[in-house]
C-alpha cells in the first residue's frame, strides 16, 4: 500500500492510496463545500447543486452521464454533508481513465434552467421522503437548537420553501465561488495508475481558474443550551417516539477524537454497550445509542432513542443516569477492551474495501492535508488507554448541557384517550 500526492499549478490536489492487489479502482472529487457554507438565502444549494452536477455539461446530457456510468459498470453516486460534497465512482481498474474523465467534466456543469426546474421537484420529494421517516425531523431540529447561530446549524437538504425560492443564478454563482481548484481534491484508492491519474487531472482540470479562498472557521463556539430543555414535535401518525440529544464533544482536530469514538462504543454502541444492556436488551426501547460526530470546529455526542411515546421521558432520564454513573464511577477494563477490539475490527474490515478507503482518505486529506493508512489508524486505536477514555468522559460529560428534541405521537393525548 502506498500514498501518492501531487499538486497541480492551479492548486488542485491529486492523491491516491494504491493497493497493488486490489481488483477495483475508486475515484472521487472531494469538494470542500456543504451546508455550513450557505447563507440563509442559499439554504440547500450545496445538495441541490450535487443533484444538478448529474444533469449534464454544455456537451453532455443527463442521459449521456447516466449511460456512460452504467456502460463502465460503475457504482457512481454523490453525497453532500455539512462540510463536503463528494462525487465518486468505483470501477474495474481498466476504466480508471474513463471514470475520472466523466467525473472531471461533470465538475463544470451546465446548470440549465429547465433541468433546474425539474430537479427542484425531485429535491422536494427527497425532503418529503425524509420528513415522512423517523426521526421525523428531530435530528434537524436538534442540530438547529444545539448550534444556534453557528453555521453547522443548517440542515443539508434545506426546506421545501428554501428550495422553491432558490433562483438558478444563485446556484451558478455558488458553483463559481465554491468549486475552484483550491477547494477540490481528486482522490483515488485501490488499483490506481497514479501517473495516469495526474495526467487526467492536468488535462481535464488544469485550466480551472483559481478562486479566492474562503475561511470556514468561525470564532463563535456553538451555543450549548444551558438548560437542557426538551423540544417536542408532534406527529400524530407516528407509532414510536424518536429522541435526538446533542452534547458537545471533541472536534476532528482534537487528539481525543478516537477516544471519544471508543467511549461511544462503550456507552452506546448498537449492541453490547451500557445503553444496550440497560434499555434495548430488555425491550424497553427499540433503539438507544450514542455516537460521536466531528467537524472542523465542533464535535458532538449524539444520543438517539426510539421507544413507546409514553416511556420517552423516563428513558431519557435513565440514559442521563447511565452517563452520570460512567462519569462518576468510570469504565472498567473489560468493557474498555471489548470496545477497543470492536473498533479495531471495524478499522480492518472497513479498510479492505477501496470504496470505503476512498472516503476515509479523501475526507481526511480534504480537511487536514494528512494521510493515515489503515495500519496508522489501527495503531491509534490499539494505543488508546483506559485513561484516554476517562479523560474524555470527565472533559466532555455526555450528560452535560445539551439540546434534546423528541418527535412522535402526542403521548399526553394518547394517555387521555
Amino acid at each position, binding site marked *: 500500500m502506498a500514498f501518492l500526492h501531487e499538486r497541480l499549478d492551479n492548486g488542485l490536489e491529486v492523491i491516491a492510496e494504491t493497493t497493488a*492487489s*486490489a*481488483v*477495483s479502482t475508486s475515484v472521487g472529487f472531494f469538494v470542500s463545500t456543504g451546508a455550513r457554507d450557505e447563507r440563509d438565502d442559499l439554504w440547500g444549494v450545496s445538495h441541490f447543486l450535487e443533484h444538478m452536477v*448529474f444533469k449534464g455539461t454544455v456537451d453532455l446530457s*443527463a*442521459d449521456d*452521464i*447516466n*449511460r456512460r*456510468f*452504467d*456502460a*463502465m*459498470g*460503475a*457504482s457512481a453516486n454523490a453525497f453532500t454533508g455539512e462540510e463536503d460534497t463528494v462525487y465518486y465512482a*468505483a470501477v*474495474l481498474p481498466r476504466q480508471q481513465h474513463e471514470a475520472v474523465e466523466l467525473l472531471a467534466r461533470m465538475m463544470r456543469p451546465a446548470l440549465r434552467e429547465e433541468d433546474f426546474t*425539474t430537479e*427542484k*421537484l*425531485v429535491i*422536494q*420529494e*427527497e425532503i*418529503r*421522503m425524509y*420528513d*415522512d*421517516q*423517523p426521526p421525523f425531523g428531530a435530528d434537524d431540529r436538534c442540530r438547529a437548537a444545539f448550534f444556534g447561530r453557528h453555521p453547522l446549524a443548517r440542515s443539508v437538504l434545506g426546506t421545501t420553501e428554501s428550495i422553491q425560492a432558490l433562483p438558478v443564478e444563485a446556484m451558478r454563482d455558488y458553483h463559481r465561488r465554491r468549486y475552484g481548484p483550491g477547494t477540490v481534491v481528486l482522490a483515488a484508492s485501490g488499483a490506481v495508475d497514479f501517473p495516469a491519474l495526474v495526467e487526467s487531472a492536468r488535462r481535464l482540470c488544469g485550466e480551472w481558474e483559481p478562486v479566492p479562498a474562503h475561511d470556514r472557521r468561525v470564532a463563535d463556539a456553538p451555543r450549548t443550551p444551558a438548560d437542557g430543555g426538551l423540544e417536542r414535535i408532534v406527529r*400524530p*401518525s407516528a*407509532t*414510536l417516539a424518536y429522541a435526538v440529544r446533542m452534547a458537545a464533544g471533541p472536534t476532528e482536530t482534537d487528539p481525543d477524537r478516537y477516544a471519544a469514538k471508543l467511549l461511544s462504543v462503550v456507552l452506546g454502541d448498537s*449492541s*453490547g454497550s451500557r445503553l444496550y*444492556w440497560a434499555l*434495548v*436488551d*430488555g*425491550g424497553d426501547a*427499540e*433503539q438507544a445509542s450514542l455516537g460521536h460526530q466531528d467537524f472542523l470546529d465542533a464535535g458532538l455526542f449524539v444520543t438517539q432513542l426510539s*421507544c413507546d411515546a409514553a416511556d420517552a421521558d423516563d428513558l431519557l432520564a435513565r440514559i442521563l443516569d447511565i452517563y452520570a454513573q460512567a462519569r462518576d464511577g468510570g469504565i472498567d477494563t*473489560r468493557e474498555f*477492551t*471489548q470496545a477497543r*477490539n*470492536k473498533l*479495531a*475490527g*471495524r478499522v*480492518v*474490515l472497513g*479498510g*479492505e*474495501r*477501496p470504496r470505503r478507503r476512498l472516503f476515509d482518505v479523501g475526507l481526511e486529506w480534504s480537511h487536514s492535508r494528512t494521510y493515515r493508512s489503515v495500519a496508522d489508524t489501527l495503531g491509534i486505536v490499539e494505543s488508546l488507554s483506559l485513561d484516554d477514555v476517562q479523560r474524555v468522559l470527565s472533559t466532555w460529560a455526555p450528560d452535560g448541557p445539551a439540546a434534546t428534541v423528541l418527535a412522535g405521537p402526542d403521548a399526553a393525548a394518547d394517555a387521555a384517550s
Partner: protein
Amino acid sequence: MKQTLFSATLDNGITVLGEELSELESVAVAFHAPAGGIHDPQDRCGLATLAGELCLRGAGDRDSRQVVEALEGAGVQWSHAVSTTHTSFSGAMVARQLPEVLPVYADILRRPRLAEDQFESARQMVLQNLAAIEDDPGHRTMSALRRIHYPSPWGMPTEGISADVERTSVADVRGFVGRHLQPGGMIIAVAGRIDWGDFLGHVERLLGDWQGTPAPAAALGPRGPAMRHVPHEAQQTHIALGWSVPPYRDDASYDVTAALSILGGGPSSRLFTEVRERRGLCYSVSAGYQTHRDFAMAVCYSGTTAERAQETLDVMLAEIDRLPGSISADELERVRARARSGLVMQQESSAARAGAIARQWYHVGAVRTLAAELDRYERLDVAAVESALAALPPRDLSVVSLGREPLEVSRGLPA
C-alpha cells in the same frame, strides 16, 4: 479469473462451503439453518424470529451477556437474521479470531438455553421492532406486496405480527427450535483469509456428531388479492408492483434479470429516466428481482407525493408495457458491464462472498464460479431476452399503494 473454492458435506447433512480470498485480512462465516418464517404456524407469525432471538440469549456455558461479550470481545461484527427460509447467524472478523469464536456459534446452534427468564425480554425486543416497522413506509409497502403476491405462507412477514407474537409462549419457541434448528440441510459458508482444512476440522469437531432432520415446510396455500391499498397518513404515497418470473435456478432468470435491470436497475434505466429524470416525479424509483428456490418476483417500487402518485403509477405501468420488443443491444451491454464489475468487486468483501456461495448452494445445489457467472452474462443477447419477455408477460400483476388515497390501476387485474 482465479478462485479457490471448497465444499464438503458432513454425514449429518450439513454442507460446508469455503472461498479463500488470500488478499484479505478478514474472514466472514455464516450458519444458515433451514428454520425460516415459512415454518411459523398460522397463528404464530414471527415465531422463527423470536426463536432466533432467544437462541442468542444464553447458550452452553454462557449466559445472554456472555454470548455477546464472547463475540464482541473478539471484535466480531455479528448479526442474526431470519428470512422466509432460513435462520442465519453470522460474523465477520479479523481472521485470527475465527477458531476462538466458532465454539460460540456451535453453542448458539446446538445448546441454546431458551431460558424462561429471557423470554419476555426477547418478545419485547421483537415487538419493539414491529412498532418501528410501522414507521417505515417503504418496508410496509414491500411487505404488503409479498403478502398478496406470494402463495401463503411464503408472503408472511418473517419479522412477525404483533398479536401473534403476543400470544407466543416459551414452549412454542422450544418446540420450534427442536423441530427446525437441525443440522440436516444446514449450510455453513466461510470466506476470506481461511485455512480450509483447519476450518473444516473445527466444524467437524463442533458439529459433526449433531444429528437431526428438520421438519418439512407447510404446503403452499392461496395468494392474496391482486391489489391492496394500505391507508397511511403522510406526505408521500408508496407504490409497489410485482409479477411472477422464473427463479434463480432457472437459466432464463439471467434473461429476465437483464430485462429488469434495463427497466429499473441503474441510473440509465427506463424507470429512472422516465419517472425521475424527465418528469421529476420522485426521488426513488427502481425495479428489481426477488427469488425463492421455486418461484420469484419482479418488483418495481417508487415513493412520491400523494398528488403525483397516480401519474407515477401510470408511467411505471407504461414502461413495463413498453419493455417487450424494445430492448437494445446498448442497454444489454450496460447490463453486462454492471454485472461484470459487481461480480468482480464481491471479492473485496469476505461477507459478500460468504453470502454469495451460500445462496448459490441453496438455490442450485452447487457454487457457480465467477468465471461461469461472467460467461453467462457474456452470452446474453437481445433475442434471448426478448423471447424470455414474450414468454413471461406480467400476467399476475400485484399492486400495493400505501398512502392517503387508493390509486387506480388502468387495466384489468387478475381476479
